[in-house]
């Protein structure tokens, strides 16, 4: 087409990579933090069992549900929205699945019913946000409470036991070799989430929608539909987390996932995703979730009680986010 003319700016080849690293090291602060925490805990409580393989797998087991919710939350936040109802959706799915299995319809029907309940929560949120244009913070603040109430009402707050061995092994209890199946679930979710966000058209549309909705629309991105899909995905991820909770506990309780939405948001933000949308990383989120799990685990091994755990893990989250903040220009 056009002939090449002399370039105004010098080539960036080598200089560019250095500058990029300098500009973006804050995006990777979660990895640094994770490494530092591992080293500190390794030295201080390594001999108290922190460094055993069993304990490290235990961390991955307990963070799996938060990680899965956080991965979906990454997409929701990347699209410039928020989903506070994801924890309530987890308990709903657990109870629905347990009730269906208890009624003798089998575990496939049970798991499907659980996932569909999550889809319904996502559809509800998506409808109010994209059709009625209500801010998602408000919509999901409401649905968080509404669904939690429904969870309690469903069995009058009674737990529902799940007697099916296969269900409990697949979702939660089992191991594949030495690796807990819960860890496998979260790894698969992270891999799928990463591929979708980074390499699919849908992921690109999510980032464009959150980065500048007007520009996205002008480029032909159906921003409302993209947001709706994000909420559906978030509902399903919450539901999957619910199945995993119930498989691990061999019981479904209305309390599952309480506060899970906040832990998930913390993991997302720690991981380097922008709360304002448009910039997101699934791997960062996954590490963020592991970081939170590791901190909690280490503090327990140190013998701190819950009040002290809360103060320290809360403080560390603020510290990590402050480090990751881009200086304002």
């Amino acid at each position, binding site marked *: 087409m056009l002939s090449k003319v002399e370039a105004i700016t010098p080539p960036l080849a080598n200089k*560019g990579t250095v500058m990029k690293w300098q500009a973006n090291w804050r995006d990777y602060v979660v990895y640094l933090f994770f490494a530092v925490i591992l080293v500190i805990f390794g030295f201080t409580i390594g001999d108290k069992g922190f460094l055993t393989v069993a304990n490290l797998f235990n961390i991955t087991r307990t963070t799996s549900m938060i990680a899965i919710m956080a991965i979906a939350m990454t997409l929701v936040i990347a699209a410039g929205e928020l989903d506070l109802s994801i924890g309530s959706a987890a308990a709903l799915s657990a109870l629905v699945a347990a009730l269906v299995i208890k009624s003798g319809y089998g575990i496939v029907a049970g798991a499907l019913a659980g996932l569909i309940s999550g889809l319904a929560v996502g559809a509800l949120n998506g409808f109010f946000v994209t059709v009625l244009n209500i801010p998602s913070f408000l919509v999901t603040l409401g649905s968080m409470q509404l669904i939690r109430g429904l969870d309690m009402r469903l069995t009058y707050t009674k737990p529902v036991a799940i007697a099916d061995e296969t269900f409990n092994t697949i979702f939660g209890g089992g191991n594949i070799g030495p690796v807990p199946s819960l860890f496998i679930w979260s790894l698969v979710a992270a891999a799928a989430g990463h591929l979708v966000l980074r390499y699919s058209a849908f992921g690109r549309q999510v*980032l464009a929608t959150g980065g500048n909705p007007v520009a*996205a629309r002008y480029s032909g991105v159906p921003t409302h539909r993209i947001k709706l899909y994000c909420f559906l995905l978030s509902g399903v991820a919450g539901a999957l987390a619910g199945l995993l909770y119930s498989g691990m506990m061999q019981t479904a309780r209305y309390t599952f996932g309480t506060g899970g939405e906040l832990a998930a948001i913390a993991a997302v933000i720690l991981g380097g995703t922008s709360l304002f949308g448009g910039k997101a990383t699934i791997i960062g989120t996954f590490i963020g979730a592991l970081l939170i799990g590791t901190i909690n685990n280490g503090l327990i091994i140190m013998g701190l009680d819950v009040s002290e755990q809360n103060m320290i893990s809360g403080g560390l989250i603020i510290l990590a986010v402050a480090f990751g903040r881009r200086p304002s220009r």
Partner: protein
Amino acid sequence: MHAMTSLNAVELHAIQKSFAGIPVLKDVNFSLRKGEIHALMGGNGAGKSTLMKILTGVYRRDSGDLFVNGQRHEFLTPRDSEAAGIAMIFQELSLVPTLTVAQNIFLQREPRNGFFLNDKEAVRRARELLLDLGEDIDPETRVEDLSTGACQMVEIAKALSKNAQILVMDEPTSSLSEHETATLFRIVKKLKENGISIIYISHRMAEIFTICDRVTVFRDGKTVLTDECSNVSMEGLIEAMLGPGRESSMQWQERAINKNAPVILDVDKISRYGKYNDISFSIKAGEIVGLAGLMGSGRTEIAQAIFGIVPPDAGAIRLNGKAVRTTYEAMDAGIALVPESRRQQGLVLDHSVLENFMLPNLARFANGMFIQARNGASKVVDYIDRLKIKTDSPNKSVNLLSGGNQQKVVLSKWLVREPKLLILDEPTIGVDIGAKSEIIEIVRTLANQGAAILVISSEFEELLAMSDRILVLHNGSLKEQIDRKQITSEEVLHHAVQG
């Protein structure tokens, strides 16, 4: 179809368009030859942007014909226009800041590998497009890290990647540095050599004479001039834009200036990198000074500096001899600013007239810890009366008022402080003619009472009606100070500002 159309990339015949019964385009004819750069000029409200929105499918014309490459088009949506090879270069609107250059260029048209996006291919193609433009912008940089000039190159690359043959550029140089402008011109010429046709909207005549082939001038919704640039002079263009023998609705009244009045504002060699450079001037009590310059000449930034919003990198600003560095100090010293954007900077839109009125004056209306709305209410009624603000009550939300009345609310919240220096940035933009002359009258009264006034306006008529003295800014430098008496006509000021 007549023979002419086949030569022209775009041909518009007798286009008419009204909004709510008010005609904006009355009878517009415009043609763009293939491979030409065609300048479009006209004052505010002349109809340029409406016509471009019709061409890009944002608005539909009421009547008239639109041809692209000889083919008649309807253009129901922006997509239709895009499909016909027309692209508009926006400055910010159409890029996603958090995505990379390559991701932006190919958004929604990404090269793929089956299900997955092929980012490597996108980067390769983006680099090729940018290098063809002569720009070595890294396609993997995020757009938010680019300068305005580089963003524009990305916009152009994006348009070219869609095979656009006709580009519309709206004031493309208004926020570019001199260096970036030179780059843009080189690229625009390159595009022209490759047969791309360009509509170039600008107020900068020097630019138009440098790179455009032809020029069309609009006035009051009509085409008043189309000619080769080599056939017209700057005087001719100014005359075409202003129209013959206009009766100015706003007459200048020479005011008696007390030569011995004390200096109120003293701006001493202030500079801010890339915005303005080594600016010094002063304003005496009772004096109205106009600040004239094109968009991007640094006029708004200077107002912001004086009010302490974005302090200068170097130099000093003094009010009555006291240094002013922050907005707090500025307000404390008696400076008030009626900002450029009334809806974003001037008012809290959802709040009432009373609340907006009280906002900068809370201490004045408070009794100890608590705000006494009663004190504010009695005062605001006074100002509603004096400034003739049309509102049912002081409790009416300001977003329900007309532009002129909103602007009077902004004025009232500062007037109650009895400012020693009032800065007005585009005080009558989007204000009807009645309210406009009232606002000018309010400003004159304030000056007569001894306040110093600094007015910024792109409407020269307004500047000339108010000012005792006019400062001319050019590319961030103070080019000259002209006594109002020496300015015999609007044309003189136009000349000065064009540089």
